């Protein structure tokens, strides 16, 4: 499937004439949208697989918290800040060797997922940290007073209580990754970014450019709305 996509890209880059008609534009945009969706969804998912535990560790290892460990907390915090301070466009180039190692290539949608996921992990960790910190300490203390272990506090108190807030974080992360994926697209990452770059920037195809922009706007709106709705549902169920 991946090779098929890459060949598809190659042929479309070479073979298509200017003065594109609407059907052709749609086909290109649809394919690129699908790639972006695919890339962003997987990168979001993976970044939570790693970022969520890191966020939990960030919170619980703080002074006075259930797994207090000042050293670990400081090391982790510093590392996360360091990664977050690298601009994504530079990060993208920086991790190329690692991407090659993992995927075998640094071009295409699958390859893009590596820098996207890596960049999103520290972001997600901070988002989760913020969500967990909103929880009233009294709830944690109540659980401890009943004899809960640290693990039980995390699983039964912290995560369920922060669910609505975490869901909103997922929406924000996804939207950020859409933006990042466009940057990745410029260095051959595929998706809407590549489309806009090749046709819009290098070939002055205004139509493609504008359709891409509209699709992006619509996409971001949808993600935000879905996030709000889901979070709202969680909160409302409790009222």
């Amino acid at each position, binding site marked *: 499937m991946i090779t098929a996509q890459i060949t598809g890209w190659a042929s479309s880059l070479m073979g298509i004439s200017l003065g594109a008609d609407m059907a052709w534009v749609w086909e290109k945009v649809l394919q690129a949208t699908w790639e972006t969706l695919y890339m962003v969804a997987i990168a979001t998912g993976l970044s939570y697989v790693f970022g969520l535990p890191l966020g939990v560790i960030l919170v619980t290892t703080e002074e006075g918290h259930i797994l207090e460990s000042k050293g670990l907390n400081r090391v982790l915090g510093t590392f996360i800040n360091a990664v977050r301070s690298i601009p994504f466009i530079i990060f993208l180039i920086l991790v190329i060797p690692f991407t090659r190692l993992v995927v075998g290539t640094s071009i295409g949608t699958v390859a893009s997922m590596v820098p996207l996921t890596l960049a999103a992990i520290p972001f997600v960790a901070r988002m989760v940290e913020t969500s967990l910190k909103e929880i009233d300490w009294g709830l944690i203390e109540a659980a401890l007073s*009943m004899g*809960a272990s640290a693990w039980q506090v995390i699983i039964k108190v912290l995560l369920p209580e922060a669910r609505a807030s975490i869901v909103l974080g997922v929406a924000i992360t996804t939207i950020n990754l859409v933006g990042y994926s466009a940057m990745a697209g410029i260095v051959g990452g595929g998706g809407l970014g590549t489309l806009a770059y090749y046709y819009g920037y290098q070939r002055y195809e205004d139509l493609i450019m504008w359709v891409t922009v509209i699709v992006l706007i619509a996409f971001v709106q949808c993600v935000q709305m879905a996030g709000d709705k889901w979070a709202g549902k969680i909160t409302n169920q409790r009222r």
Partner: protein
Amino acid sequence: MFCIHAKGQTVLIFMGSKLKYARETDRLIQITNLSKIYHTPHQDILALDDVSLSVRRGEVFGIIGLSGAGKSTLIRCINMLEKPTRGSIMVDGQDLNALKQRELRQARQKIGMIFQQFNLLSSRNVFDNVMFPLEIAHIPPQQAQQRVAELLELVGITDKARVYPDQLSGGQKQRVGIARALANDPKILLSDEATSALDPDTTRSILKLLKDINSQLGLTILLITHDMNVIKQICDRVAVINESRIVEVGDVISIFSKPGTPTSQSFISSIINKDAPDEYISNLINRHSGSYSCLVRVSFIGASAGEPVISSMIKRHGIDANILYGNIDRVKDVPFGNLTLELIGDREAVRQSMEFLKDSGLEVEVMA
């Protein structure tokens, strides 16, 4: 319904007074030379200073003190939410300081706690909130569900089982908190200002529930409060804490009638007006400037409240008595109160009248 319940009752019925004696001397909580220092960046705060205290099995023990006195710190040391800086805490013969993490968690399952802010999980409905401690203790689901149903019944919120805490009133939330705290059959219930966020009526009903639980299940309750009414309503014994130290401990009735420290005195006068308004008294004194008169405050506890002591005194000593101010209250069903009297008549007769009042078991204090 509960094993404590069944045990407590049978034992009480068949062993009678011998057990009662054993119970009174049985120290469920024994705090010895407890100190707690909070280290903050700017200063060290001595929150508890060499506190020793014991709580008997089956009693309702109150700790009262002003804000910042160290009440919360003290109660939180009892389940090790705060680690004592010095001193020991024995709960049912177990030294909590000596326990490993795992053993401490086990011990905590047997020490229930309720809070001023209720601290219910908003992500769980009432039923699941009460289920929570049972999950922590790894009770099999079927057994746990049955237990939850019993507990909801006990605290009277069965109809709210599927409702989320956000939809409950403060009183209902505290009932859920109580059910949750009782889930694992604790030996002790700790209450940190459990009624301070509630209105007076709701406070009364929650206190009644606690008292019922105490007498029905034989559950020992240790509560902290800054409200003397709470102490008056349900406590057997009380400790007064002031500036990190216990300044007085005793039966509620004896502290009410004879507060030994300024702190206790001010707490008691916060709910019992001992004195008639000043200007009222000075007016009355002026009026009788012709004959000898003496202003006394008579305090009584218990039985003597029902006897016609004042009228006997008037008849026997031939004086007049003017009741200026009076107040009667009840502390745990014992009547308790004071009268401000103006005794008018012959100087010697007034003196003898006062002796008579003292002999009748009243406390007499000359005011003017």
